[in-house]
C-alpha cells in the first residue's frame, strides 16, 4: 500500500509540474529585459508597457470581452432551457437528436464547426440577406452555439442531482409551473448558472479557429491578433499578456474558492447549532 502511495505521489508531482511548468516559464520571461524571450538579461516590466501601448491588442481585447459577455449571457439562457428540457421533460419527440446536438459540440473539431458555420452564414446571406457581412454578430452566434452545449451539460447535471420533490412540493402548494421555475428551481441552481456563465465567457475569450472562420474584415478578436503575432515567433509582450490572464484567472479562482469555503464553514456551524438545539 505504502509503495503505491509513493508512486501516486510522484505521479501527481510530475503531472502538476508538467501542467504548471510552461505557465510558470511564460510568467518568468514576461519580466525579462531581453527581446530574446528565453535568454535572461535582467528584470523589467517594459513588455507590459508595450502591451498597453499596442492599440491593436487593446482593441482586440475589448472586442473579445464584449463578445464573450454577450455570448455567455445568451449561452446561459439557451443552455438552461436545453438542460431543463433534457433533465425534466422525460421523453419527448426528437429527444435523441436533441441530446446528440448538445453532446456533439463538446467534441466536434473546431475546423469543422468553423467551416460549417461560415458556409451557413454565406448561404443565409445569399438567401435571406441576413446576416449581412461577417463580423461581431456572426462570431457571437457561433460562440453561443457551442458554449450553450457546455452550459446545458452543467445545468442538466445540476438538475439531475437536485431533489425533484422540492419542485413538486411547490406545485402542490399552488404555484404554477413557470412560477416554480422562477421562484424555486432558478435560485437553487443559481451557482451552476454562474459557473456556466464563466465557462461560456472563457470559451469565447479563448476561441481562435471558429472566430477566424466566421469573422470578417475589421473584426479581429484577441486570439486572432495573438495568433498572427506568435506565428512569426515568440514575442515578449505576448508573455506579458499571458501573465495578466493567468493572474486574473488565479485571483478569480482564489476569491471564489474563499467565498465557497467561508459559506461551507458557516453552514457547518449552523448545522452544529441546530443539532445542539435539539437536546
Amino acid at each position, binding site marked *: 500500500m505504502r509503495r503505491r502511495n509513493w508512486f501516486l505521489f510522484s505521479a501527481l508531482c510530475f503531472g502538476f509540474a508538467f501542467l504548471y511548468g*510552461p505557465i510558470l516559464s511564460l510568467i518568468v520571461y514576461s519580466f525579462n529585459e531581453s527581446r530574446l524571450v528565453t535568454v535572461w538579461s535582467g528584470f523589467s516590466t517594459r513588455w507590459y508597457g508595450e502591451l498597453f501601448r499596442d492599440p491593436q491588442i487593446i482593441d482586440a481585447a475589448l472586442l473579445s470581452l464584449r463578445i464573450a459577455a454577450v455570448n455567455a449571457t445568451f449561452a446561459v439562457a439557451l443552455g438552461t432551457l436545453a438542460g431543463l428540457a433534457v433533465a425534466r421533460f422525460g421523453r419527448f419527440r426528437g429527444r435523441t437528436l436533441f441530446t446528440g446536438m448538445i453532446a456533439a459540440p*463538446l467534441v466536434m473539431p473546431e475546423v469543422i464547426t468553423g467551416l460549417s458555420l461560415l458556409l451557413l452564414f454565406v448561404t443565409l446571406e445569399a438567401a435571406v440577406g441576413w446576416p449581412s457581412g461577417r463580423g461581431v454578430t456572426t462570431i457571437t452566434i457561433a460562440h453561443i452555439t457551442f458554449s450553450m452545449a457546455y452550459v446545458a451539460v452543467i445545468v442538466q447535471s445540476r438538475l439531475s442531482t437536485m431533489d425533484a420533490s422540492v419542485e413538486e412540493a411547490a406545485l402542490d402548494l399552488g404555484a404554477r409551473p413557470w412560477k416554480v421555475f422562477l421562484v424555486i428551481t432558478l435560485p437553487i441552481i443559481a451557482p451552476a448558472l454562474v459557473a456556466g456563465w464563466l465557462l461560456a465567457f472563457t470559451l469565447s475569450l479563448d476561441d481562435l479557429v471558429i472566430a477566424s472562420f466566421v469573422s470578417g474584415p475589421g473584426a479581429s478578436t484577441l486570439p486572432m491578433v*495573438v495568433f498572427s503575432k506568435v506565428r512569426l515567433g515568440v514575442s515578449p509582450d505576448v508573455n506579458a499578456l499571458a501573465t495578466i490572464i493567468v493572474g486574473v484567472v488565479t485571483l478569480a479562482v482564489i476569491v471564489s474558492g474563499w467565498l465557497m469555503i467561508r459559506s461551507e464553514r458557516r453552514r457547518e456551524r449552523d448545522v452544529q447549532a441546530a443539532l445542539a438545539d435539539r437536546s
Partner: protein
Amino acid sequence: MSGAASEEPSGSGRRRAFWLSGRGLVSSIPYLWLLLFFLLPFAIVLKISLAEPIIAQPPFTPLFGPDGSLQATIDNFLFLLEDSLYIVAYLNSLKIAGISTLLCLLIGYPMAYGIARSPRAIRNILLLLVILPFWTSFLLRVYAWMGILRNNGLINNLLMWLGVIDQPIQMMNSDFAIYIGITYSYLPFMILPLYAALERLSPDLVEAAEDLGCRPWKAFLTITLPLSVPGIIAGSLLVFIPAVGEFVIPSLLGGPDSLMIGRVLWDEFFGNRDWPVASAVAIALLLVLVIPIMLFQRMNLRREGA
C-alpha cells in the same frame, strides 16, 4: 375542474400537459437554435462539397443549375483520394491523435487515481489545480511550449549549460512537439472523467480484494482498472476526437511535413480559397469521426440513465 387540463382528451397515461404549460416553448427555443446553427450547417457543407469551385462570390457553383437540373459532382472526393497528401494527412492525424490520447492516459490515470485517493480536504484543491490551466488561454499555453522547445529555448539552453549536449536538439517543428502540445492541452479533459469514475469507486473494494489474497497490482488490474473503463473511454474520446481535427497545435509547434487534416482544411480554405474541396475534407473528417462521436453520445445517454 381545471380549464386547461380537462379540455384535453383523456386516456393517454403518459400525458402530463399541466406539468409545464410552456414546455413545448421551453424546449423548442434551444432546439431550433441548434437545428439552425448546428445541424443545418452540416447539410450545407455536404451540399458545397458536391459543387465545383469557380472564381466568383461565393466561390462555388450552385447545386441546381439555371435550368433547374442537379449539378452535383463527386470530383472533390475523388480528388481527395487521388492526391496522396490527403490520405497521408488523415492517417497522420489519426496516428498523432491516438498517440497523444495514449500519452494523456498514461499521465492522467495515475494523477486521477492519486487525486481520488488523496485526503478529502485537499482533493478539491488538487482538482481545481487540474482545471485551472483550462481557464487560461489555450493559445497561450501552446505558445509557452514554443519558448520551451525552440533551438535556443529553455530545454536546449538548460541542457547545453549543463554540458549534456553541445548542439541544440531539434524539437520544435516536429511530430514530437505536437504530441507534447496535444497531451499538455488536453490533459484536463482526460483527468476529469477518470477522476469521476475513480472517485465513485469505493476503496473498500480494493481492500476486500487484498483481504481475499490479491496482491496490490493484481487488485488494481482486476478491480480498479475494469471499474474505471467508462472513465477511460469517456476521457479518451474527449481527447481523441477534437485532437484529430486540431489546427492550432500543429500550425504552431509542427513542422512543414507534419501534416494534420485540420491544418490541410485551413490551408485549403484560407490559402487556396477552394471551398468545395475544404468542404469535402470536412465531410470526410466527419465520416472518420462519426463512430467515435456516436460512441461518445451513447456514453452520455447511458450515464444519464444510470
